């Protein structure tokens, strides 16, 4: 099954739920009409939260840059001795 079908099914299910709520009036109609907006806004906020949290916890590795520099020096030494051109131009 294509992914988009899964998503559409989910959307239809939620819409059906919403229509059901509209018809049975368990919640006052005025509120029910606004539910989709609340839903979209919450989804947006959740997304932004995830981005923010992810940004704060973004894994960094400054020590790797140093290790890499060491590797570069080692590699250049080794290859230069064996006749490989390790210049940048």
């Amino acid at each position, binding site marked *: 099954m294509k*992914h988009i079908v899964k998503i559409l099914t989910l959307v239809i299910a939620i819409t059906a739920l919403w229509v059901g709520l509209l018809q049975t009036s368990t919640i006052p109609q005025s509120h029910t009409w606004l539910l989709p907006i609340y839903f979209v806004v919450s989804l947006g906020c959740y997304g932004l939260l995830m981005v923010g949290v992810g940004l704060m916890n973004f894994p960094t590795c400054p020590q790797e840059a140093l290790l890499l520099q060491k590797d570069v020096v080692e590699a250049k030494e080794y290859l230069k001795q064996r006749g490989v051109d390790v210049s940048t131009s």
Partner: protein
Amino acid sequence: MDEKKLNQNQKNKYSIIVPTYNERLNISLILYLIFKHLQDVDFEVIVVDDGSPDGTQDVVKQLQQVYGEDRILLRARPRKMGLGTAYIHGMKHASGNFVVIMDADLSHHPKYLPGFIRKQLETGADIVTGTRYVKGGGVHGWNLMRKLTSRGANVLAQTLLWPGVSDLTGSFRLYRKSVLEDIISCCVSKGYVFQMEMIVRASRKGYHIEEVPITFVDRVYGSSKLGGSEIVEYLKGLVYLLMTT
């Protein structure tokens, strides 16, 4: 799993495909590091150079004298023809039963290769993909804006696609050769989206995918091939993947 157990698996051969364009210095460095870290593994490196004007191919030929023409294969193309076709071209010449794809610019460090191999042997996975976004992994050399776009792009992709992997645009991966051949035949995108399409299609097809944390140090030498229209392409790609996978 220690090095001994790794060696005992003599049946496996790893073909490492490295597409290059103007990587005259980086290609030496990366080949040195690959040979350093895969000392007791049966592998070959296939350099797919797209007609680099900076003499990358001459350097590769020098490296072939050092490491052997049977270990470094130069399979060049006349001009820039895209990453996807570079992999396909490389695979045609690959004699291994596993294929590793990685970048030539040292952002992917060969020291992770034994880890990829080990993970695959332990789990029998079809694909082992490097992830920069989990603990143990990481990125260096990205400013706040870059991290923001990366994180935003990732959250969007996760929400829309439910891919089952944490790093969608990463291109440091180990594939079972047959699996790579299968997926690559149905992928049509370019650039970042291509990498995403590969892993999403693999996920949809039910292939066993494992992740390994990797560190990513942004380009040390040379200029990064990051264009301005990448964001638009990315969004278009997401919609395409949403509709067709």
